[in-house]
């Protein structure tokens, strides 16, 4: 029997290359998980994303119910609708995950992030930074003669915009918390 005309040195990729995606559109979704606050639960969530090749754009976690030892994890992820569905199903299957909510599809939600932004400079640049901070409602939480640390809370794109403006004005350092999100209304 003859060789099957495979070119020598044809490289191997993954077996999953031939998977047709149901739709190619990439969507950004914010997921809120309620998890039992046991050792390793965050590692399980993160391991799921890395192990299965999903994206994490932002992730925040903190205990929200001390008595019942429950934490809330907010994950912002990007994928095709099918991948997003898989992510939710896979998250739901982790034993200590109690609840998975897709805030992006479950109706309007508010999303906020907190950032600390250090800008240093002198003269006009310093004055301009302060002026812009006022427009963006960023607070000065530390100042020296050469620098400011601004604190701002807002939607992620607003923080992005502010950081971009600070770049030419002496941006030194950014610390961001990642997104915390919640559905609007009473439910």
């Amino acid at each position, binding site marked *: *029997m*003859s*060789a*099957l*005309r*495979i*070119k*020598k040195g*044809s*490289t*191997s*990729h*993954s*077996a999953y*290359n*031939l*998977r*047709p995606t*149901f739709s190619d559109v990439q969507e950004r979704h914010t997921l809120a998980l309620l998890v*039992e606050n046991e*050792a*390793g639960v965050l*590692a*399980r969530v993160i*391991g799921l994303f890395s*192990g299965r090749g999903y994206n994490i754009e932002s992730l925040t976690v903190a205990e929200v119910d001390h008595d019942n030892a429950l934490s809330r994890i907010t994950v912002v992820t990007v994928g095709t609708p*099918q991948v997003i*569905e*898989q992510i939710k*199903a*896979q998250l*739901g*299957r*982790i*034993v*200590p995950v*109690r609840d998975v909510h897709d805030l992006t599809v479950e109706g309007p939600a508010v999303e906020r992030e907190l950032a600390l932004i250090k800008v240093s400079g002198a003269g006009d640049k310093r004055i301009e930074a302060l002026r812009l901070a006022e427009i963006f409602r960023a607070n000065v939480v530390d100042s020296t003669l050469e620098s400011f640390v601004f604190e701002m809370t807002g939607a992620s794109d607003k923080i992005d915009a502010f950081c971009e403006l600070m770049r030419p004005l002496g941006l030194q350092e950014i610390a961001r918390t990642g997104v915390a999100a919640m559905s609007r209304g009473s439910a």
Partner: protein
Amino acid sequence: MANMTGAQMVVKALKDQGVEVIFGYPGGAVLPIYDEIFQQNDIRHILVRHEQAAVHAAEGYARSTGKPGVALVTSGPGATNAVTGLTDALMDSIPIVVLSGQVPTFMIGSDAFQEADTVGITRPCTKHNWLVKETDALADTLHEAFHVCTNGRPGPVLVDIPKDVQFASGTYKAPGKADIGHYQPRLKGDPEAIEQMVALMETAERPVFYTGGGVINSGPAASQLLREFVAETGFPITSTLMGLGCYPASGEAWLGMLGMHGLYEANMAMHGCDLMINIGARFDDRITGRLDAFSPESKKIHVDIDPSSINKVVKADVPILGDVAHVLEDALRIWKSRGRKTNKEGLQKWWAQIEQWKQVECLKFKQEGAVIKPQYAVQRLEELTKGMDRYISTEVGQHQMWAAQYLGFEDPNRWMTSGGLGTMGYGFPASVGIQVAHPDALVVNVAGEASWLMNMQEMGTAVQYRLPVKQFILNNERLGMVRQWQELLHGERYSHSWSDALPDFVKLAEAFGAKGIICSDPNDLDDAIMEMIKHDGPVIFDCLVTKHENCFPMIPSGKAHNEMLLGEADTQGVIDAKGSVLV
């Protein structure tokens, strides 16, 4: 609520969970538990010769009984040796509980002797795992472990128990009293979806049941209900490698296994159907072939207990989340109450078409010449053992596929094979676990010589416990499945696919105190097989077979169901570069 040490709790919890046997291997970090095992007679401990084998044996035990299998290993290397078995059980949804010892809590993180981050290492290869840091939490955790591993989609769990937790005293809680957490998957399917399913079944012209391991997982009632549904509707049925036995091979509607090495009629029916009824199967890539050409004209019903299986690779038109037995019970009831309707005319034509496909006789082969063909060996094994109380395990490779094709399974839980992970070395220890569970049954491991060598140390276990497991080795002196791919995909460049320097299997058996049989002449085969069956003890059967046999039918990677290769003549130039990157 009694006060006792952690080690006592382990043994007590196992007893309370109905565990009769555990497979294990001792070491420093589990000595307190071994001490307790020594002082009781309710739980039998089987000393394996390698921790991987302990886990596979537990899998064989679990799959052949429907009960969870239990393995006990020490910290560090004991736990890391268990990883392959855990991954195997995860991929095939097998309920097992692995207990591992750990260094004392106050030494964790200090690179102590035989310390490994066992929960970290096994997190992605278990359904869930726990490190128990206090003796008072041990009973809850052990009972939760059994609850999680057997409920919903079954899978392996691991409980890591530091040595000081085993020594310390605490309060034991019985199963009914323990806090087993919130894990409670849904069993009942959505009635509306089931109604839709029935409606589609009433009008379908070319329906097919595509069944899988989920039917076996769901328990004997699921197989019973499935059989009734098939008999009532007259729909054809196929099954994955993992589902064999859920419908009897002698049944009228049986099409045989489907998939990469499945039967022509099964794959053509999947390709041409207008209604696919997936019961507990997961659209594995061995089944679907090229996805954009997979069963293009069918509506798809998908019954599965795991939401992540649904719409993962193939979009379901009617997804039904629930347990197979529960869903089938409701579906059958609704179908009956709506008047037991099927599209008789359509079905008649469909069966006529299927009969034509069957004429192809895709499993036909000719035993000629002086050398035994592997297909012939399996066929003779089937003929000589089919009426018996028989359990089969396999290793991984061509022999596994031939076993799936040429053996017939009449009942669930009779067929144990490593499907998802494809673990060479699975079959022998699995056969040990099966034989422990069914001491009087005939247990045969259909093996390839290369796979079998991977866990051959278990001969010691088989001999020590007088387990009469039959190791039926189809010896082609090749890593046959690899050789086949190299022939078809890599220009016949047989890179390292020989089994060189093989042992003399008869002498090897004798060295362990077991019986060895060698057979090379087709005329002697029946007698030799009978000799193997009749021998009351473990046997290594070295069946010398043709060396370059390929396994057909075969759907090459990246091809559609109707592009199947039926024999050598079909193989010219079929797999393109895109297909060759697939595994």
